[in-house]
């Protein structure tokens, strides 16, 4: 499979094409079979390839499939060729694996929708684009996937295009992403100008050659990395471009799970890890990445606490977790970042799918204050989501614990680490445990705050039965259970140093071969310090969960009192720090107004056309005056002729 692993890209593409073009006439069963089947085949191929890769010596674990030359002009060449190495291997497994489960989930979740075929076509297209992104062997091809997933995200967020919210959210997502892509593009230009290639391998070896040590101050590498990072903030919803992700929840829940939690939004992290060679030589950028990451994590976690919409909480949670990943890569812990990406994909996808299951059971009610006590109705959902919550909260031995622990440890001890980063990271961990516990308690515990009658706000979705909430079918619960198991055990591949060997990190090591690791401080610290810090973090998380239990189960009045007491802060958090409003007032509104009134009505119609038409009317004005000579009186004409003749004679007479 290693020689032809690229064919795994074909299946989703073909699936998308078939469903997209002919799907309207297909039965739902056929559509679902094509949709899920194509992704499953891709997953199987990815798995096969992955195991073949494992059979190779670590240094040889990078296989390229060259397909054709895509763009060639002068000394610029971009190939359509794909790379399978440990990093892209992990990514493609996550993408196709989680992707397949979510496809499976959608079979039931989306049943009865009018655009069933459309949905699966988009979803398949997304898998294709995402695979392109992670398998590309050069930045330009990665950019194809990068934009492609943005497009699919646009299509899928706007899936319910008849609602205005969905349309707005889709557009916002795409445009904000485009701002990031602007940076990505410029980053690529700068790479090409400086190093003459966009192909990973030759680029990284050139960089390692030309920059044996990190650059001092703000140089070209810092420029490149910051521009690329701008792209990453767009795609991965970091400050300042995170605003689109919460809105993106207007899309169907499986989409939120796949695109806006597990895969697409992690592309930025993947990209930075991929560019480790560049970043590790640009300490200034590293610092910025880490700071942005942790600030985003903190801000998003704070906002998440005050949200009532179950999917909004998860969305901000995603932003926050992504911040963690950026913190990781920002401190040079590339493998830890990818490790968290990998575990996060499982538990966050699970959380979204679980919330989807809840939403389905609640007839499309998303407000957590109108839920409660669902545990007895949705046991499987409750159990799996519980696992995921423990995982994201960082409770051992669930997956999130290992990855988060790695990140926090590295943020303290790595060459780029700092105590402040660690403190903030721990704070975020505690907040995460708190808001996730809040979500669980509000949803599954306490009083039932809903009636058993119809809750449907959306009449057109009212194909589900009214009555008490009940667990959806196996199509929904099976993916939940599989993801639940994965959320529980996936972390075991990356045990911390004091527990054994971090196999995940070692596996990824060849990818970061060219990354600069000169002055790392790792290994100087004792295991006892690491264990001690871990205990602190876990304890904090447990305390947070307990607090949440007190607040939202034992004594529901407390949060209300707190909210009243700190009304200002609560309002600020509830309104997400007014970032959308600020962007609107500072950027969107002025641009729109200036374009309309200054550029179009002012310059275009006013000045330029005004000048042109002004010349014309000037001409007209003059001819209006001059035309009076054309009086219609023949004698006047004759006089003019005479006058002219006299003038001519005079001229000749005087000239001689």
């Amino acid at each position, binding site marked *: 499979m290693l020689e032809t692993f690229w064919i795994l890209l074909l299946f989703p593409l073909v699936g998308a094409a078939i469903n997209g073009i002919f799907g309207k006439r297909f039965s739902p069963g056929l559509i679902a079979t094509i949709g899920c089947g194509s992704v499953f085949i891709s997953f199987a191929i990815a798995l096969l390839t992955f195991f073949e890769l494992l059979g190779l010596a670590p240094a040889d674990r990078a296989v390229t499939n060259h397909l054709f030359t895509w763009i060639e002009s002068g000394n610029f060449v971009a190939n359509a060729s794909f790379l399978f190495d440990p990093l892209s291997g992990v990514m493609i497994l996550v993408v196709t694996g989680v992707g397949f489960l979510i496809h499976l989930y959608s079979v039931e979740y989306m049943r009865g929708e009018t655009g069933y075929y459309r949905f699966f076509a988009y979803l398949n297209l997304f898998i294709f684009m995402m695979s392109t992104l992670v398998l590309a062997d050069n930045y330009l091809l990665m950019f194809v996937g990068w934009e492609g997933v943005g497009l699919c995200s646009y299509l899928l967020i706007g899936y319910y295009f008849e609602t205005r919210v969905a349309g707005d959210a889709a557009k916002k997502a795409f445009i904000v992403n485009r701002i990031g892509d602007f940076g990505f593009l410029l980053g690529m230009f700068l790479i090409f100008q400086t190093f003459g290639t966009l192909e990973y391998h030759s680029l990284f070896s050139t960089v390692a050659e030309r920059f044996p040590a990190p650059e001092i101050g703000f140089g070209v590498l810092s420029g490149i990395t910051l521009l690329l990072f701008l792209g990453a903030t767009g795609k991965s919803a970091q400050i300042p471009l995170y605003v689109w992700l919460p809105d993106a929840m207007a899309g169907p829940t499986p989409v939120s799970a796949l695109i806006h939690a597990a895969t697409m939004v992690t592309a930025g992290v993947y990209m930075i890890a991929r560019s480790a060679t560049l970043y590790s030589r640009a300490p200034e950028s590293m610092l910025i990445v880490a700071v942005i990451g942790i600030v985003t994590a903190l801000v998003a976690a704070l906002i998440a606490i005050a949200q009532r919409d179950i999917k909004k909480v998860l969305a901000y949670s995603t932003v926050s977790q992504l911040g963690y990943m950026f913190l990781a890569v920002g401190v040079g812990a590339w493998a830890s970042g990818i490790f968290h990406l990998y575990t996060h994909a499982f538990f966050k996808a699970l959380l979204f799918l679980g919330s989807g299951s809840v939403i389905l059971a609640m007839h499309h009610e998303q407000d957590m204050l109108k839920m409660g006590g669902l545990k007895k109705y949705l046991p499987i959902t409750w159990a799996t989501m519980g696992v995921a919550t423990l995982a994201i909260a960082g409770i051992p031995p669930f997956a999130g614990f290992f990855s988060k622990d790695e990140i926090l440890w590295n943020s303290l001890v790595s060459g780029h680490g700092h105590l402040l980063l660690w403190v903030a990271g721990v704070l975020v961990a505690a907040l995460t445990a708190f808001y996730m516990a809040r979500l669980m308690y509000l949803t599954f515990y306490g009083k039932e705050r809903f009636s058993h009658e119809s809750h449907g706000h959306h009449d057109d979705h009212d194909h589900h039965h009214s009555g008490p909430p009940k667990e959806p079918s196996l199509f929904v619960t099976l993916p939940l259970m599989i993801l639940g198991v994965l959320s529980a055990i996936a972390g075991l591949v990356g045990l911390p140093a004091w527990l054994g060997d971090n196999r995940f990190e070692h596996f990824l090591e060849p990818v970061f071969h060219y990354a600069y690791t000169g002055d790392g401080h790792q290994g100087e610290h004792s295991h006892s310090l690491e264990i001690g810090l871990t205990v602190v973090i876990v304890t904090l998380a447990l305390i947070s969960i307990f607090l949440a239990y007190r607040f939202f189960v034992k004594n529901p009045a407390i949060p209300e009192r707190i909210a009243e007491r700190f009304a200002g802060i609560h309002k600020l958090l509830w309104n997400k720090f007014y970032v959308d409003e600020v962007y609107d007032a500072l950027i969107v509104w002025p641009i729109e107004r200036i374009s309309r009134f200054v550029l179009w009505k002012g310059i275009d119609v006013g000045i330029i056309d005004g000048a042109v038409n002004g010349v014309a009317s000037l001409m007209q004005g003059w001819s209006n005056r001059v*035309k*009076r000579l*054309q*009086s*219609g*009186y*023949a*004698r006047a004409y*004759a*006089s003019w002729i*005479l006058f002219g003749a006299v003038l001519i004679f005079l001229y000749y007479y005087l000239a001689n």
Partner: protein
Amino acid sequence: MVSTTQFLVLGAILFSIGTLGVIVRRNTITMFMSIELMLNAVNLTFLAFARHFDQVDGQIFVFFVMTVAAAEAAVGLALIVLLSKRNDSVDIDQANTMKW
């Protein structure tokens, strides 16, 4: 012998008189006659030069001018008749539709 210059002076005077007539008269027919007068003034000049340079071409030219004048008179007078029927007048100022 009468000098060429004398003829030319006469021609100039006649021409100017004709011009004056074309401009000040409103009667189309009189205007027409003034034009004929101008043509004759020119003919006179032609012939004067023909004699002066001892060439026959001047006379030929006068011949042509006369032919054209005849043709012009035929069409022009037809037009005048037409105009007078339409406007009930030969006043040139009443035929002022040829303008912007």
